[in-house]
């Protein structure tokens, strides 16, 4: 059972890579998701120029592959005298991608709040800010939770792109073990299983949350 032998021998270095991937994904999501909120509000703004600018920015952000953003930040920014370490560059790039996608998801969630509730809040004399804070956001964000969980899974998968900027995450570790031993099949297979061990339970969880949410709407 040479595959099992390979797995037993090399799983510690893959685990250390997995830890880097998890940290990268968590940090990018923690920075990117709050960053998406102002864009979500901006794309629903009443001022036309503000709305169009925000929508254009978000669409451009979603249209560019995460890999391109990553390479742009890591290899491109040094030419304007801004050199980032590979972990910081990966965090910045994935946080920007997260922000673009989050803003679309949140916008959908905020739009799902019935207009009558906003009107009712105004009729009760609540200010614009209070309406947003106590009526629209709590409900809108709740609607957005299942798709945001889906996005988190995608961003975790996208951490594998950081292999291209030499960040020692899961795929880089697997690849370097593979190229040293030529046991690509078994090592990359194990790396794949590591990714799946996180993404598959996470997607089950998000399906369950979605079903539960559907009950309350």
């Amino acid at each position, binding site marked *: 059972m040479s595959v099992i032998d390979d797995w037993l021998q090399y799983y510690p270095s893959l685990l250390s890579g997995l830890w880097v991937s998890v940290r990268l994904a968590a940090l990018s999501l923690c920075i990117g998701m709050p960053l998406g909120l102002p864009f979500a509000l901006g794309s629903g703004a009443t001022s036309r120029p503000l709305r169009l600018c925000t929508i254009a920015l978000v*669409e*451009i952000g979603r*249209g*560019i*592959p*995460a*890999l*391109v*953003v990553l*390479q*742009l930040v890591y*290899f*491109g*920014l*040094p*030419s*304007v005298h801004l050199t980032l370490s590979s972990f910081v560059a990966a965090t910045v790039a994935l946080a920007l991608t997260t922000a673009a996608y989050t803003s679309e998801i949140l916008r959908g969630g905020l739009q799902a709040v019935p207009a009558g509730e906003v009107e009712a809040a105004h009729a009760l004399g609540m200010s614009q800010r209070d309406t947003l804070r106590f009526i629209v956001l709590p409900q809108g964000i709740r609607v957005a939770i299942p798709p945001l969980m889906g996005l988190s899974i995608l961003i975790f*998968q*996208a951490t*594998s*792109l950081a*292999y*291209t900027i030499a960040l020692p995450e899961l*795929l880089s570790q*697997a*690849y370097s073990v*593979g190229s040293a031993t*030529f046991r*690509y*099949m078994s090592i*990359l*297979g194990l*790396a*794949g299983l590591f*990714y*799946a061990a996180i*993404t*598959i339970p996470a*997607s089950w969880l998000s399906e369950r949350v979605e079903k539960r949410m559907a009950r309350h709407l």
Partner: protein
Amino acid sequence: MTVFAAILSGVPTTLLLTFAAFGIGVVGGVPLALARRSPHPLPRLTARALIELLRGIPPIVWLFFVFFGVGNSVPGIQPMNAAIISLGVISCAYMAEIYRGGLSAIQRGQWEAGEALGMNRTSVLSKVIGPQVFRISVPAAATYAIGLLKDSSVAYTIGVTEVMFYANEQSRSTSDAIVPFLMAAFVYVVMTIPCAWAARTLDSRLRKRVAR
């Protein structure tokens, strides 16, 4: 300008890779979606496990698995073929899930009506349900195709000469490292906009031909 021309020369490869992989997914997704709904547990569970694994593992890992892993025992596999195979197989799983969503959107009454007319299940599926499932699936499939176009950029890591490959090459050979990547970003945005527009038009045309 020569930098931009060099990056543009990767566009045909990017489009070919995307369309080939998407084509595999459109066709291969059908048996997988049907197996996923099979009354027998063996095909159902196999299809489910396959779909979960294909969607749960990042595309670049599948790409490496096919190119370096399987490629070790299949000498002389071309990077482009490895990229088409791995992205194509992943597309099968995503398309299967899209078809599954479309199938569940068809009202049960249509199956019953077909059976009441004396059609067997296969012909109800292929003549009544199937065509509508394809029409319902268009928007989701288009969103997926646009995502696939962006995901195809990972193929540069195994040496497929698409947009990202040339952007990297240009970035390394010129003094200005940032411009080639901005150009690549521009090229991707320009490629995805017509796709999104075409999908919207096609969707509104096909939507009229789904029974409500």
